[in-house]
């Protein structure tokens, strides 16, 4: 699995619950199906299968227009309660797999969760990219385009 995903985004959330409880909610099928990959609150997942070990796979399915759509992936790191890394994709729509890293740091009685979602085509196609950080430009496009003077290298 390549580390060179071009696009990276990060989301942080502070929980009152302990790091262990937050971590476990990712891997407990009964809990995970209530919130993870749920597209609409009134539409719970129809299936949630989790094999929570490195190399283990998961499959969540939700219903879209009466058809079950699977979200599948593989756990790459399972380090309770600090870190969870997994790939995920929706084969119905794209052959690409994104990568999600969940870092949990205890804070007081609660914890802070930082989620990093890396996506986009991976591998060979990106070899000519010399700056990894360019993806951030996508978020601040205007600044990037109109600010820096054009350099020709």
């Amino acid at each position, binding site marked *: 699995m390549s580390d060179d995903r071009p696009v990276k985004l990060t989301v942080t959330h502070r929980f009152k*619950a302990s790091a262990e409880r937050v971590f476990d909610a990712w891997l407990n099928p009964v809990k995970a199906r209530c*919130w993870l990959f749920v597209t609409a609150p009134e539409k719970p997942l129809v299936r949630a299968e989790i094999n929570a070990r490195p190399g283990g796979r998961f499959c969540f399915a939700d219903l879209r227009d009466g058809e079950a759509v699977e979200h599948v992936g593989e756990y790459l790191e399972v380090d309770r309660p600090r870190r969870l890394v997994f790939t995920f994709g929706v084969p119905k729509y794209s052959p690409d797999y994104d990568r999600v890293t969940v870092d949990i740091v205890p804070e007081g009685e609660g914890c802070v969760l930082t989620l990093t979602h890396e996506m986009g085509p991976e591998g060979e196609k990106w070899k*000519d990219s010399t700056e990894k950080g360019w993806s951030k430009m*996508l978020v601040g496009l205007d600044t990037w385009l109109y600010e820096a003077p054009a350099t020709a290298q």
Partner: protein
Amino acid sequence: MRTPATPNHLDQTLLALADPTRRAILQRLAAGELRVTELAQPFAMSLNAVSKHIRVLERAKLVRRRREGREHLLSFTPKPMDEAARWMEAQRASWTSRLQALDDLLQAEDRAAAASAPPHPKGRLR
């Protein structure tokens, strides 16, 4: 969350932006329309090599070409980048709402535990 609308053209946009020369081309075009020769001039590469980069940008619809007599004029079209940025924002928003749903779920568990064990709820919960 991937949707049927996400895949291909986003890849095209990212692929086009993944090269420093192509980004420099876009930055120059962002300042205004240019002839191909004007655009190629500051780059330390052949016109042919620059043209290849331009074609990648055209394929991604980031650059539009129009002809005026014998001149080819290039301009920047921001729509694909706006779409890519919007798509990323949508991804971020969906993670934010999932994490909020997780938070709600855990707090509901706390409330249920507090309700079923009223005598000593403190210390054990939260």
